[in-house]
């Protein structure tokens, strides 16, 4: 039998004005197990807590019920107080007689009666409470970063600087991501490569960082502090220990028709290639789909050219298994496909391009050497139309419902750069809204209008039709209530961005959730923006939602801090209110496993002694470090073997009984 003490808080007049606290205290003494009751002005105060602690000691209480405000306010306070004087914190329960009673009722009699019932339910529960101890599990002191763009690089650098090992897995042959493709960055217009490539080199050179480029995460098992990942290192057909990155093979390669990914397909590359001059790792890679040797068995020029003898046509994919304490997802984004937006003529006209393609056309390392030329006839465009919100903010199936966030600013940047370099070129921007929240962003956009004379037109484009070498753009000007027609030389579409297609697969692998747009979901949109709902999985960059470079870097560092905070611990404490399966009742039917959102339940064959009968049975086993305590499994279990500590079937039914008595 428990020895329970019941403490009723007045909360000044917040409770006491509507609930007759004395009456509740009297009623408490009539409940089974209750050996003490008292009311007090402020239970959460120092003296209130002292009253509770003293009583626990004096009366040897085994359980405590505090009738006060919501447990969401002070449950932790009272549990800590109990713990400080030797009572297991999980022997304390709160009856919420403020938010759920005194504040919503006016009639004293009615409120008092309800308070008594709520107290009674809490007492009934405490009578069945058991001491709970949080489990502990070891932490592997290494982190995995999936994705080697600016987000992944920054996260990895910060974790490594704090002294922990970190691996970057990047599916492309080089790290750098989308930022490596950009020409300049807003709002300062500094060169993207100049600020990114040193970080790429830092990452490669850091003794704590290991880069798995041209690799993908294939499988992840385990839980916070102790994940195991299988990494597939795709065959480069080039021995990375021998290749010096000299690039001679790429010059000799006779197959030169493959679209150059780094230049968004605006020009071509050889079958054996180095993605770009500052690639990290700077190693050649063979694209077997384009390579003559792989297609016909002949050629072999690269092998003959390579003095380092690095070419290895027989190289195979390699599977590597590594253990990690934490995982950061930094899978980034892509520009959407424009198949369903052909009113803008993207497929029909080479001179209708995306903004990312424009970045390459303006970049000194791009296909035109930095001179802005139309893809069709390589002439200078004299009139350029920018179209905003292509695929963003829409509601059709092909649209993205969200704002892609970066387009307003990069379009201002593009128009400014063009006007700066080619003052005779006219620039028109069709916009629905110009969104510039960010430090120096509005000023930047206004500079484009005021200083550089970019024509901003409030409206959208409805059709782009090629006409005698020009692009006839039909748009609307909503301030004039008119349709406007512009014969342009180049049309640039600010296509929506979407999470990289790998995000969905990785989310499934990590049992973390994604939203309807395939962005990974943060644990709390305000207070836990870089953590996923799954413990030990963190989010960095655009995989979580559209953001620009400064925001991405900020989130990357924030994710790194969370990782470091985790890796700094030798062991982690788990939530003790987790599911537990009764071995003697478990049928091994797997129903619980199927509903567990965290993959916390596994099965093992184990010998049990069922009342003298020894046999090997298939039994559910809950990994307490992974279980978050939702209880889905308890209901799925037909035999009642699965129960939730702290919220057991019997406890909840006792509460029900107390309320319905």
């Amino acid at each position, binding site marked *: 039998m428990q020895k329970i003490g019941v403490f009723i808080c007045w909360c000044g007049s917040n409770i006491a004005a509507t609930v007759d606290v004395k009456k509740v205290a009297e009623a408490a003494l009539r409940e089974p197990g209750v050996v003490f009751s008292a009311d007090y002005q402020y239970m959460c105060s120092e003296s209130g807590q002292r009253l509770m602690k003293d009583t626990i000691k004096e009366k040897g209480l085994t359980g405590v019920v505090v009738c006060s405000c919501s447990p969401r306010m002070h449950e932790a306070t009272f549990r800590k107080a109990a713990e400080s004087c030797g009572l297991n914190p999980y022997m304390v329960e709160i009856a919420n007689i403020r938010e759920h009673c005194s504040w919503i009722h006016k009639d004293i009699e009615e409120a008092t009666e309800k308070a008594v019932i709520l107290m009674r339910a809490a007492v009934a529960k405490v009578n069945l409470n058991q001491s709970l101890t949080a489990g502990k599990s070891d932490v592997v002191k290494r982190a995995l970063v999936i994705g080697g763009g600016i987000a992944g690089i920054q996260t990895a650098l910060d974790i490594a600087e704090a002294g922990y090992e970190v691996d970057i897995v990047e599916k492309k042959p080089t790290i750098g991501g989308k930022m490596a493709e950009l020409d300049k960055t807003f709002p300062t217009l500094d060169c993207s490569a100049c600020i990114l490539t040193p970080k790429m080199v830092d990452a490669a050179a850091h003794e704590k960082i290991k880069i798995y480029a041209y690799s993908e995460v294939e499988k992840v098992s385990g839980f916070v502090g102790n994940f195991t990942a299988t990494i597939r290192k795709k065959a480069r057909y080039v021995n990375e220990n021998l290749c010096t990155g000299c690039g001679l093979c790429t010059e000799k390669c006779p197959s030169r028709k493959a679209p150059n990914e780094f230049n968004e397909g605006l020009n071509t590359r050889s079958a054996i290639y180095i993605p770009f001059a500052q690639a990290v790792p700077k190693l050649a890679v063979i694209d077997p789909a384009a390579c003559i040797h792989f297609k016909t068995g002949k050629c072999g020029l690269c092998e003959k050219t390579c003095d380092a003898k690095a070419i290895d046509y027989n190289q195979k994919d390699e599977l590597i298994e590594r253990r990690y304490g934490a995982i950061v997802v930094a899978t980034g984004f892509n520009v959407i496909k424009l198949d369903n937006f052909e*009113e803008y003529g993207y497929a029909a006209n080479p001179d209708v391009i995306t903004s990312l393609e424009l970045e390459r056309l303006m970049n000194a390392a791009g296909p035109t050497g930095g001179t802005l030329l139309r893809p069709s006839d390589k002439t200078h465009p004299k009139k350029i139309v920018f179209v905003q*919100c292509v695929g963003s*903010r*829409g*509601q*059709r199936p092909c*649209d993205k419902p969200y704002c892609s966030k970066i387009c307003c600013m990069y379009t201002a940047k593009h128009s400014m750069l063009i006007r700066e370099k080619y003052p005779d070129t006219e620039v028109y921007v069709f916009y*629905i809204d110009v969104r510039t929240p960010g430090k120096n962003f509005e000023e930047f956009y206004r500079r484009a209008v005021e200083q550089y004379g970019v024509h901003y037109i*409030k*409206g*959208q*484009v*409805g*059709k782009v039709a090629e006409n005698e070498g020009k692009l006839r753009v*039909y*748009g*609307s*000007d*909503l301030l004039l*209530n008119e*349709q406007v027609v512009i014969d342009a030389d180049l049309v640039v579409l600010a296509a929506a961005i979407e999470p990289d297609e790998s995000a969905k697969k990785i989310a499934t692998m990590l049992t973390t959730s994604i939203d309807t747009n395939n962005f990974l979901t943060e644990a709390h949109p305000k207070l836990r923006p870089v953590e996923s709902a799954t413990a030990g999985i963190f989010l960095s960059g655009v995989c979580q939602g559209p953001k620009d470079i400064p925001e991405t870097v900020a989130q990357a560092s924030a994710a790194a801090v969370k990782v470091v905070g985790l890796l700094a611990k030798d062991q982690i404490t788990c939530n003790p209110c987790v599911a537990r399966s009764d071995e003697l009742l478990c049928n091994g039917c797997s129903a619980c496993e199927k509903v567990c959102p965290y993959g916390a339940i596994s099965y093992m064959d184990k010998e049990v002694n069922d009342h003298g009968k020894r046999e090997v049975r298939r039994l559910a086993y809950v990994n307490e470090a992974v279980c978050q305590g939702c209880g889905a499994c308890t209901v799925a279990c037909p035999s009642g073997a699965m129960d939730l500590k702290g919220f057991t079937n019997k406890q909840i039914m006792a509460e029900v009984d107390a309320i319905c008595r």
Partner: protein
Amino acid sequence: MTDLQKQIENIKRISGANPEKCMRCGKCTAACPNYSEMEYHPHQFVYFIENGQLDRLLKSDSAFRCMTCFACVERCPRDVKPAKLIEAVRLTLIRRKDSNYLKPDEIPQKIDEDLPQQAIVSAFRKYTK
């Protein structure tokens, strides 16, 4: 509810379109092939209906200038369906007493030898009740 409000509600109902979804991008007007012949343009139909200024639309013959080509419906990113609103305005006009836009006795002088039947039946369906 005033008569105008009732008419607006009816237009929203029979068109199945929701002008509140509009985000004012003007793509409908940008895409409209008959822009130059209309006093009010598709985006204005949407905006006027949303703002209770249906009377302005009812006084204009813009509704009869819409070719119902559905370019605005197809391209509207918010799925507002401007052409359906325009058609509902047109029906509001012709469903009034004695207000057919096209009178049968006007027909003979309008047709030539090659004109397909389709044009006449279509016009009747669009312009008369």
